[in-house]
């Protein structure tokens, strides 16, 4: 390499890192482009939940990249409501089941699934179809209804929330996946990946009393982040969220969004949702608030986004 070229490259690399540290590799070693740059966000459309999940994981480098042999894995879907899968109030059971299978195939020692439900937990686990799907896939579904299962954790970067009580499954695991469903929500407008975090904590009443949006953003600063946010948009709930009245609240979208970035994946999901119901990103205040707390970015154009239609 010539001296001049070296400087050029170094300068470019320097500028590049300012925007996205991942593109550094691309600039320095062009021929390794495809291997080194895994996308920041993968969007898949047009398949069954399991097919879309496997495809998205493949784009991200395979499940082995996230789950190592012998690890304890936790999957946190949205199982908040005593509703059937057709109503899209809970995460799609096939998606959860498929993810359990993937984790076990990658050598996970155990895969636990839970949610701190809103309705009676046993009814939610059953009606959502998730209990059956998890058991069939070889995972273990555990309750989240008892305060004794929660331990305090600090949120040093939180604004309104400085401490939260987190389910011990999350605290004690090696890796965890956040698997929300895309829904309209009467309160904070949208329920996606950051809103789904409410299901790992105990006292949610406090959130509602103390600026729900800020608390949702605060919780996203929790140090133990999910390795991936897998947003189920196979069916999305367009109205009367978060539990819906009937199946006509659900819209078939056959989509899946996957990212490690809370803010990016919620931004993308809201934009996608905007096609079925007009939703102003700024009204979903927690997205911008989380960005301020450096949880992630709303600027999808600056990210490596992979869009796949099946």
């Amino acid at each position, binding site marked *: 390499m010539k001296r001049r070229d070296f400087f050029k490259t170094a300068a470019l690399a320097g500028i590049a890192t300012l925007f996205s540290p991942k593109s550094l590799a691309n600039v320095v070693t062009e021929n390794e482009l495809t291997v080194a740059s895994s996308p920041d966000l993968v*969007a898949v*459309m047009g398949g069954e939940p399991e097919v879309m999940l496997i495809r998205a994981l493949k784009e991200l480098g395979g499940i082995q990249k996230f789950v190592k042999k012998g690890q304890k894995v936790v999957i946190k879907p949205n199982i908040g409501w*005593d509703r059937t899968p057709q109503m899209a109030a809970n995460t799609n059971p096939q998606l959860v089941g498929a993810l359990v299978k993937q984790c076990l195939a990658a050598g996970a020692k155990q895969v636990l699934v839970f949610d701190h439900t*809103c*309705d*009676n937990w046993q*009814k939610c686990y059953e009606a959502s179809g998730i209990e059956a799907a998890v058991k069939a896939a070889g995972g*273990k579904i*555990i*309750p989240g*209804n*008892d305060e*004794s*299962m929660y331990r305090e954790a600090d949120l040093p970067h939180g604004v309104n929330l400085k401490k939260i009580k987190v389910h011990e499954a999350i605290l004690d695991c090696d890796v965890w996946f956040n698997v929300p469903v895309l829904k309209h*929500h*009467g*309160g*904070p*407008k949208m329920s996606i990946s950051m809103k789904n975090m409410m299901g790992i904590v105990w006292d949610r*009443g*406090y*959130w*509602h*009393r*103390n*600026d*729900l*949006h800020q608390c949702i953003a605060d919780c996203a600063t929790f140090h133990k982040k999910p390795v991936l946010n897998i947003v189920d948009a196979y069916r999305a709930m*367009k*109205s*009367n*969220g*978060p*539990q819906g*009245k*009937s199946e*006509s*609240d659900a*819209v078939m*979208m056959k*989509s899946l969004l996957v990212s490690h970035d809370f803010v990016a994946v919620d*931004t*993308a999901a809201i*934009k*996608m*949702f*905007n*096609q*079925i119901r007009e939703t*102003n990103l*700024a*009204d979903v*205040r927690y997205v911008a608030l989380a960005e301020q707390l450096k949880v992630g970015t709303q600027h*999808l154009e600056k990210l490596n*986004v992979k*869009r796949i239609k099946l």
Partner: protein
Amino acid sequence: MKTLKHIRRLLAILFFLPILLFFIDFTGLLPLFLHKLLQMQWIPALMSVQVGVVGFLLVLSLLFGRLYCSVICPLGVFQDIAAWKSRWFKKKGRRYRFDYRKPNNILRYSLLALTVIVFLLGSSAVVVWLDPYSIFGRIITQLLRPLFIWANNGFSALFIKKGIYVIYGVSQNAFVVIPFIITSVFFVIVAVMSWFRGRLYCNTVCPVGTFLGLLSKLSLFKIEIEKSSCTQCSACEKRCKSQCIDSMAMTVDETRCVSCFNCLSVCKKGGVKYAFRYGKKQEAAPVSEINSSRRTFMLTSGAVVAALATAKAETLTGKKDEILSRKPIMPPGAGHLEHFNTKCTGCQLCVSKCPMHVLKPAALEYGISGIMQPRLAFSTHVYCNQDCTICSEVCPTGALTKLTVEEKRVTQMGIARFRKHKCVVYTDEKDCGACSEHCPTQAVHMIPYKNGLTIPQVTPDLCIGCGGCESICPVRPYQAIYVEGNSVQVKAKKPKDAQKFEKKIDNFGF
């Protein structure tokens, strides 16, 4: 003649155990059809006007005497167990030391008359307190069941710490101070009476026992002592937990005999017989002792007047603090408040079977005569599931009419009242929406407020009073949204479905 006693015992166990376990069962494991055993109880059968069951019980009593008391009534069996256990604490020679006592006729007939008259006047105030089956239900639900739940919760916490998920914590819902005290007092009275004097409670306080006592004067079979073979050894008298055998006079007070057959099995001479009443002529039955009728009548009327006065004095709305005054919320299927208050005997079966733990015995919410009757009490995550009909299915007295899931979904038990001035959206100008989130019918829904905020609004016609909103409203201690009970449960409107979205989404939109 030991077989009769064994059969009685076996039958008693067959009735008692399932009832006991059904009341204790906090996991919902036992099948709901067990409540059929409770419909066979006298007062529930009368309350729900089950002609077949009442007929059966009548025939049973007319044939065999008070077999109901020694086999079907769980409180009766409970007393037998108490009396039986008491033997372990007595010296060998004194184990079977019952002796003949005179009946307390004034008390027993007054209580029976009081119960009947007050009930005919349209109040179940006395029945609620004295129905033996309901007393048993309360003792188990409020005193015994909580111990099992504590144990369960202790073990489940222990197991879960070890990563074993087999049993789960269950919340305690039956504890309310006033009903707890009343139940405890009854428990002590019944237990002490039976510990020392066998079936004294049944033959002095219990209106059902007294009524059946009158009936058994006509029963086809009855216990009697054959004078020719009796040696007056008093073995039968000592074993008679009803204390109704006078071995010296060789008489049996059949109004108090509960057909336990213990006396039959101890008599070595075969002098005690369970014999056909109308077969051979016998000498006059022991003196009928209802001659104190005038005194009884005076006492009874006095007590009735007193009871009516208290019943009048009660008001349903109650005082309560201004912030959250409300009418009580009846369980689904209760229909009219009057109907419900008259038919419910406060047996707590619905309370113990409610999977949402939202039913609690009332203190004074329904007034004095409604103490211990169930009401809905909401707290965080505790509300009435719109698809659940269990309480209406198990109710043995007909106070709750059986509902289908479809009916339940539109049964309006109360109506949510929204108090805007307390709502987080109004006071803090911040989004919340917890109430609407938990509303299964979207009777509580969010409407645009200002600055992109949304605020709850209630459509009363759609509201079923399930309490989802109240249970989750973060404003405490007095929620910004709460449910006011209906005195008459009406049909709510069916929520309209949202408009279907038919277009196909082909773009990612970003």
